[in-house]
């Protein structure tokens, strides 16, 4: 009888410890972040930092290899951007996905960036045809929204891509969520499920400190 009780107690302790370990590992797990790289440049007296991301039609790695994603330099899905306060982020996005079109055409407009413009493969643009958008990089609370031109089937390169560059000002410390406004979550309700609702894929956070 005593042996049975001891065995039961030991089993409960093991199960409890396992649950505690699972919860702890879940809570302390942090996704890969993209940290802005400092430069010697300045815009309007503010220091410029560089951030580079890549957008692809399929992440190819991680728990959802078939989802559209923003990737960091290591090729991992990542939408956590760390940047210093009161700076200008020079964003470079290597856009490698094809167009699926905007639901709200207004997001074809570039706004909130320095000069309200972007450069696509070196060409300055203020808007794109909304049907040619593959994704957007939009930070609602900062008023920043940049449409990302989709690659075409006849586009050259390996892989074919559109290099989108723009600058935007970052205010004081805070957490600013950002997302894509092209409903690119294929196969989900209104295209807004899956990667559109998952941090690390088409929704992210800009951590300013």
């Amino acid at each position, binding site marked *: 009888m005593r042996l049975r009780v001891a065995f039961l107690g030991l089993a409960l302790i093991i199960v409890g410890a396992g649950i505690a370990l699972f919860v702890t590992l879940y809570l302390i797990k942090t996704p890969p972040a993209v940290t802005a790289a400092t430069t010697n440049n300045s815009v309007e007296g503010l220091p410029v930092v560089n951030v580079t991301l890549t957008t692809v039609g399929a992440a190819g790695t991680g728990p959802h290899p078939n989802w559209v994603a923003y990737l960091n330099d290591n090729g991992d899905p990542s939408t956590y951007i760390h940047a210093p306060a009161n700076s200008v982020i020079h964003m470079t996005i290597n856009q490698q996905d094809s167009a699926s079109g905007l*639901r*709200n055409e207004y997001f074809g407009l570039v706004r909130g960036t320095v000069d309200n413009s972007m450069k696509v493969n070196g060409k300055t643009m203020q808007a794109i045809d*909304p049907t040619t958008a593959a994704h957007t990089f939009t930070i*609602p609370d900062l008023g920043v929204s940049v449409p990302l031109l989709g690659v075409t089937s006849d586009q050259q390169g390996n892989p074919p891509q559109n290099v989108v560059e723009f600058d935007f000002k970052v205010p004081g410390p805070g957490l600013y969520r950002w*997302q894509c406004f092209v409903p690119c979550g*294929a196969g989900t309700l*209104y295209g807004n499920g899956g990667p*559109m609702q998952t941090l690390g894929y088409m929704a992210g956070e800009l951590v300013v400190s």
Partner: protein
Amino acid sequence: MPPRRRTLINIIAGTWAVLAAAGDIALNSLPLPPGSATDIAGSETQVIRILAMMAWPIFVAVVAGLVFTLYVDRVAPDAREFDAQTLRGNSRVQTMWIAGSTTIVLGVAIFGTITLANDTTVPTVAQAVPNTPLEVQVIAQQWYFTYRYPSFGGFESAHLVIPSDREIEFHVTSLDVTHSFWFFAAGVKADAVPEHDNSVDMQPLKTGTYRIECSELCGIWHGSMSDDNAQIVSAGDFNTWAQQQQQLDAPIMKFLPPYSHTYVPAPGAYGS
């Protein structure tokens, strides 16, 4: 009735009267939500104030009755048996109860009906100026509200800006799931339903910066679907802003769809 009991009733009644009057005076002067930024908000605030002033004396009376009962009809620890009086066949109490309840319920019903009837009439504020309603379309999508101004060429904005001198006619719709446009300070809450046009009129009364948020659970970023920079501005400031916005929107104007009360995005825009 024993003199002691009558004295106690008088004390409680007096306390009730003082607390009820003090509470109603306070409620009459407190800045209750949603405020007076628009005619609708002012009307809602007035309704809340009146109902609160009606409810407060009743609440105090219930508490006073409870205290009275607990004190007078309490059972002594050494009492052998419970012998509280049974109230039966007291026509005076029954009449007062039925008459009071009926008066309160009918009063609230009449008051509500009159308020609703008044809210459906054209606002009487600022009638001195030509008050053609300014149509503003609210377009909801996961997870952002944008706004179109058909009388200014149909430009679109990421922030709501409206003039204080004109009646506003909101037309609320959605491009994906159901949202709810909640302009709290204006007293406006309207569901944004795909392929439906939900309209609501209001007359701004106070300039200022206000918050707008979605009040319908609409997905993971529902909690972030808000804007703290909605503005009610003077007519001059609004015209200046509209001109600036038209210039900013110029590059996208040729791509915006013709203004419509509802939109049905192309199947290709559904990501499936």
